[in-house]
C-alpha cells in the first residue's frame, strides 16, 4: 500500500517539481514520504488504543488484578498496562490505589513497567518507521520484561521496603463509572488522537527532518565501526543514553530508525527505545516517596537488566 504513496512522492519531487536526484532532494523525498506515513499510522494506532481504553478503566483494572495468583496477575497486568495511559505524576496514586485494593506488589510492578513502556505513541511510531515485525518484537519483549520484573519482585518478598504510610492510607470509592455509548467511545478516541498529535507533532517533524538529512547525506553503515557488531558495550551504552531522554519517544524513534541504517544494530536500537520509555529519572524521584531505596534500586536494576538482555538477544537473532 505504501508503494503507491512512494510513487506519488517520486512523481511530485522528481517530475512535477523537476528536481534532480541528489542528497538534498532525496532528503526532501524522505521527509514528505515519512511525514504522511507516520502521521496516518500513528493516528490510527492512537485511535484503536484509546477506543479500547474506554472499556478498561483503572478501577476495573484494579478489580481484575486484585487477589489473583502472582503469575497470572503479572501476565494480565502487562496486557492491561498497554491500554492504560501513564503519566509519571499518576504513579503514586496508582501505586497506593493498587496496593490498598490488595493487588500483590509484584503484579503492581508489572503494571508500572508495562504501562509507560508499551504506550500508543511508541507503538504507532514503531509501526510507521520500523514496520510491523519490530513493533511486535517490542511489544512482546516489553511484556516479557514486565512479567519477569513482577515475578522477581514477588519472589524477593520486598513488601517491607514499601513506605509504611502506603498501607495506612484510606482509599475512597473513586470515579463512578459512566455508561458509554459507542458514539461517546468514538468521540473520546478522536479527541484523544487530536490531543496527542497536537502535543507531539513538532517533535516528530523535527525528528523526521533530522532523519531526512541523515538519509540524504550520511552513507549507510557509517556508524557500524563504533556501535555495530564489534562493540560489545553498544547495548548498555544505548540504555544509559536512553534514561535521560524520558517521555520523548516521539522525537526519538524516527531518528533511531535512521541510525539503524547507518550501522546501529536492531537489538541496540530496541534496547535504546525501551530505555527511553521505561526508565525515567523523574519517575525514579516520584516513586522514592512510596518505595524505600532498596526496592527502588532493585526495581530499576531488574528492568535495566531485562532491557539489556533483550538488546543482546536481538543483536544475535537479527544478524
Amino acid at each position, binding site marked *: 500500500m505504501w508503494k503507491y504513496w512512494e510513487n506519488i512522492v517520486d512523481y511530485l519531487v522528481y517530475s512535477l517539481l523537476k528536481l534532480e536526484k541528489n542528497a538534498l532532494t532525496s532528503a526532501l523525498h524522505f521527509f514528505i514520504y515519512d511525514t504522511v506515513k507516520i502521521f496516518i499510522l500513528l493516528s490510527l494506532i492512537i485511535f484503536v488504543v484509546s477506543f479500547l481504553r474506554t472499556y478498561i478503566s*483503572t*478501577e476495573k483494572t*484494579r478489580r481484575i488484578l486484585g487477589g489473583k495468583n502472582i503469575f497470572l496477575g503479572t501476565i494480565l497486568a502487562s496486557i492491561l498496562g498497554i491500554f492504560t*495511559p501513564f*503519566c*509519571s*505524576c*499518576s504513579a*503514586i*496514586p*496508582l501505586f*497506593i*490505589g*493498587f496496593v*490498598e485494593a490488595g493487588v500483590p506488589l509484584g503484579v503492581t510492578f508489572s503494571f508500572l513497567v508495562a504501562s509507560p513502556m508499551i504506550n500508543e505513541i511508541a507503538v504507532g511510531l514503531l509501526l510507521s518507521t520500523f514496520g510491523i515485525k519490530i513493533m511486535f518484537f517490542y511489544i512482546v519483549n516489553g511484556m516479557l520484561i514486565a512479567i519477569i520484573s513482577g515475578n522477581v519482585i514477588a519472589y524477593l518478598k520486598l513488601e517491607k521496603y514499601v513506605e509504611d*504510610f502506603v498501607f495506612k*492510607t*484510606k*482509599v*475512597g*470509592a*473513586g*470515579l*463512578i463509572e459512566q455508561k458509554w455509548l459507542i458514539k461517546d467511545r468514538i468521540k473520546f478516541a478522536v479527541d484523544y488522537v487530536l490531543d496527542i498529535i497536537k502535543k507531539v507533532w513538532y517533535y516528530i517533524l523535527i525528528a523526521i527532518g533530522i532523519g531526512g538529512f541523515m538519509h540524504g547525506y550520511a552513507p549507510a553503515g557509517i556508524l557500524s565501526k563504533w556501535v555495530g557488531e564489534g562493540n560489545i558495550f553498544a547495548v548498555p551504552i544505548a540504555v544509559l543514553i536512553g534514561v535521560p531522554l524520558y517521555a520523548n519517544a516521539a522525537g526519538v524513534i524516527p531518528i533511531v530508525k535512521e541510525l539503524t541504517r547507518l550501522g546501529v544494530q536492531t537489538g541496540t536500537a530496541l534496547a535504546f527505545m525501551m530505555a527511553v520509555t521505561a526508565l525515567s529519572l523523574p519517575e525514579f524521584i*516520584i516513586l522514592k*516517596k512510596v518505595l524505600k531505596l532498596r526496592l527502588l534500586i532493585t526495581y530499576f536494576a531488574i528492568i535495566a537488566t531485562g532491557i539489556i538482555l533483550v538488546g543482546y538477544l536481538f543483536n544475535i537473532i537479527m544478524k
Partner: protein
Amino acid sequence: MKIEILGTGCTKCKNLFNAVQEAVKQTNISCEIEKVEDISKIMSYGVMMTPALVINGEVKSAGKVLSVDDIKKMLV
C-alpha cells in the same frame, strides 16, 4: 458549590486548574475552588489518575485535562 482539583502538581494539573477558573468565570457561578496536592487527601477520593475534578465531594473526572466547555457542562 465547592470544586476541588486533585493532583500532585504537574503541568496537566495546572492546566485543569486554569480551565476550571476560566469555566467558572464564564458561567458566573459563585463557588470555592481548591487545589488539593496532599496525597492522602487525593487517595481519600479514591482517585488513581491525576488530575481529577471533584465537585461537591463527588469525583467527576480523573486522568483528563477537561476542556472549558466540558467543565461548564458539569457546573450547570
